């Protein structure tokens, strides 16, 4: 029972990711894609968690945390890129 | 000394790392690289004798027995090539002192150079197929940078192509390792050899993998029809770099084919080696056709690099003792003489102010030494005895005849003749002929540029005249390759 529910959750999460990928492909604007990407990152965390449950292992805890960190950094980078055209700024004035 | 085998890798590696700290101290860089290169020559020659006296030398890195850890294997073939590499690299280094401009020197030229040598030497010495991949990458990334070093337009243009092709071939390499691991479950070449050699049943998939590896190494080693990237990219960088490329880089690919096709993929030689033989023949023909087609001295020489690939691999494909010995002799010869020729052509371009044959002429009037050295080197390249190319060619012909590959022997001779034609044209139109007056006032100087080539030509003559002294070493090398058991026993110590 537990396992079935977990499998269903995994499928749902995977489908969510798929939908988000659709958004990435579709756009229409760049920020749309970045939001979708952010969403994919978060869903990935969930999916890894579910997979950890399915596999009953603690090996992937770091992966989840890292995903969180990276999704954040990625989002920051993209939004800066969209907003300012540069990712890393030189001396601000 | 336990760690003797790793010294040829460690010396350039450590030198390069130390040099990374002091990019702007050019004199220090020169001195240290020179010392390292000399040391490398000494150590590798010592290793040759050690291998000769005590058999194959191995080093289990980290103390882990193969096939679990990485093992360095200095068998005779590897260490002979390492020695040749060390000599060529020393000569090229000397040439660099006078030919590389100061800005380049300040931007890590010497460290990159040392790292390139590290990669080349390591690829020769490793006994693990994945480690071979890693050494390839070391060598390649250093070569990418050396090609683009300086960032002129033509360098950027050609290096883009060069990098692209090599990145793809690296990916294919990984794919090849993947397949091989699936089938054979191990990475150590001796272990692979043992496992594949023990097969009783047919393993057709291994043949496919063998061909895949042929493609991967063929891409690095410029085998037909995979060499297209080579001519332009080798002609783009400064002569010293072109020399080290022309002399060494393709040889690593060839060596890898040599190694895998004599030690690992020996289950279906009638099939795989016939493919290799045909490709080798096509390589020599197409290579020399390219050389004849060009009027640019650098291009002519670059295409001749391809011809040599065909020669050596033909020797490999014969699976005979003569063929193997011929391939080894020819490989060593080609490293030396291609290095010399690239350096000489470099000096020639410096004094002529152009690399196009139509714009030069009569150089021998003012640069007789250069001219005669070039002539001698060409003769060595073509295989005129008693210079170095001859002995390899003789053995290759013997191997071809005893393997019954008459057509390929004929192709070899035809391409030799055309090699002669393509190269002697440089001599006739560049050194001989009417002096081109419009360039007369800007003739450059060959100061410091001739000594390195002189060393290499002397080595070439030494290989030819002193073939008897070299013979036992080469024979041992061929022996090891013909009998993989020797290699397996030395590595796995069973």
């Amino acid at each position, binding site marked *: *029972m*537990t396992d079935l*529910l*977990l499998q*269903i*959750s*995994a499928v*749902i*999460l995977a*489908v*969510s*990711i798929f*939908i*988000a990928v*659709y*958004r990435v492909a579709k756009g229409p*604007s*760049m*920020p*749309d894609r*970045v*939001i*979708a990407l*952010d*969403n994919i990152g*978060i*869903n990935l*965390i*969930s999916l890894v*968690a*579910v997979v*950890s*449950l399915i596999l009953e292992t*603690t090996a992937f*805890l*770091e992966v*989840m*945390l890292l995903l*969180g*960190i990276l*999704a*954040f950094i990625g*989002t*920051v980078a*993209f*939004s*800066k890129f*969209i*907003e300012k055209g540069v990712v890393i700024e030189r001396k601000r004035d | 000394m336990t760690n003797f085998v790793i010294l040829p890798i460690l010396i350039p590696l450590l030198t390069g790392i130390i040099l990374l700290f002091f990019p702007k101290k050019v004199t220090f860089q020169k001195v240290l690289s020179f010392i390292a290169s000399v040391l490398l020559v000494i150590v590798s020659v010592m290793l040759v004798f050690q291998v000769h006296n005590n058999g194959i030398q191995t080093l289990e890195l980290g103390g882990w027995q193969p096939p679990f850890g990485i093992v360095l294997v200095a068998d005779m073939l590897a260490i002979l090539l390492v020695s040749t590499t060390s000599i060529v690299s020393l000569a090229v280094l000397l040439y660099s002192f006078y030919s590389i401009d100061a800005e380049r020197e300040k931007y890590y030229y010497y460290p990159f150079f040392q790292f390139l040598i590290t990669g080349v030497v390591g690829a020769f010495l490793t006994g693990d197929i994945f480690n071979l991949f890693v050494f390839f990458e070391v060598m390649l990334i250093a070569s990418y940078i050396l090609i683009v070093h300086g960032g002129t337009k033509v360098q950027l243009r050609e290096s883009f192509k060069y990098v692209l092709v090599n990145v793809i071939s690296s990916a294919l390499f990984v794919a090849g390792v993947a397949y091989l691991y699936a089938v054979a479950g191990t990475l150590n070449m001796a272990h692979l050899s043992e496992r594949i050699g023990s097969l009783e049943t047919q393993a057709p998939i291994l043949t496919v993998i063998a061909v895949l590896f042929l493609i991967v190494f063929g891409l690095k080693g410029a085998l037909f029809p995979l060499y297209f990237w080579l001519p332009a990219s080798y002609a783009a960088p400064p002569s010293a770099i072109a020399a080290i490329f022309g002399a060494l880089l393709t040889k690593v690919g060839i060596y890898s084919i040599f190694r895998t096709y004599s030690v690992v993929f020996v289950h279906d030689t009638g099939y795989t080696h016939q493919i290799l033989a045909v490709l080798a023949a096509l390589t020599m023909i197409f290579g020399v056709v390219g050389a004849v087609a060009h009027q640019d001295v650098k291009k002519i020489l670059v295409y001749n690099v391809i011809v040599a690939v065909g020669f050596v691999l033909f020797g490999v494909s014969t699976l005979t003792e003569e063929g193997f010995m011929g391939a080894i002799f020819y490989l060593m010869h080609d490293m030396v003489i291609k290095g010399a020729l690239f350096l000489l052509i470099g000096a020639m371009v410096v004094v002529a102010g152009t690399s196009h044959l139509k714009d030069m002429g009569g150089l021998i009037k003012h640069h007789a030494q250069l001219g005669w050295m070039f002539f001698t080197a060409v003769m060595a390249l073509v295989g005129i005895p008693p210079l170095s190319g001859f002995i390899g060619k003789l053995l290759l012909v013997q191997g071809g005849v005893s393997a019954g590959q008459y057509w390929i022997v004929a192709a070899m001779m035809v391409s030799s003749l055309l090699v002669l034609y393509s190269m002697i044209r440089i001599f006739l139109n560049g050194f001989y002929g009417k002096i081109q007056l419009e360039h007369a006032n800007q003739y450059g100087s060959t100061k410091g540029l001739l000594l390195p080539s002189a060393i290499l030509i002397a080595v070439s003559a030494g290989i030819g005249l002193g073939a008897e002294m070299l013979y036992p070493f080469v024979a041992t090398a061929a022996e090891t390759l013909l009998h993989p058991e020797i290699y397996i026993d030395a590595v796995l110590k069973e």
Partner: protein
Amino acid sequence: MISIIVLLGALLSLVSAIGLVRLPDIYTRSHAATKSATLSVLCILFGLFLYFALVDGYVSARILLGIVFVFITAPVGGHLIARAAYHSGVSLWESSIQDELHTKKKNQHSSS
């Protein structure tokens, strides 16, 4: 029990995904993507934490850290994107009623 929490989280994520597709403009989509997705991941991580705590008796600081981290960063990320979208000129849904930033900026512009 735990699987139900997880399933809940998964469903939330589906909701946010549907929102991501169905909602009309970037700003509303951003809302769906960040808010409900954050909730979904918190649910699932909490489920995971409970599972290890109850089943294996293993209290993982890393999961807690993860929860905290997502909690902090998700809103910041959402904010940044929305701002970037706005500044790069992505238009609002036609049915939006107010655009305060726009008027503010205009004022700034005219005053300076």
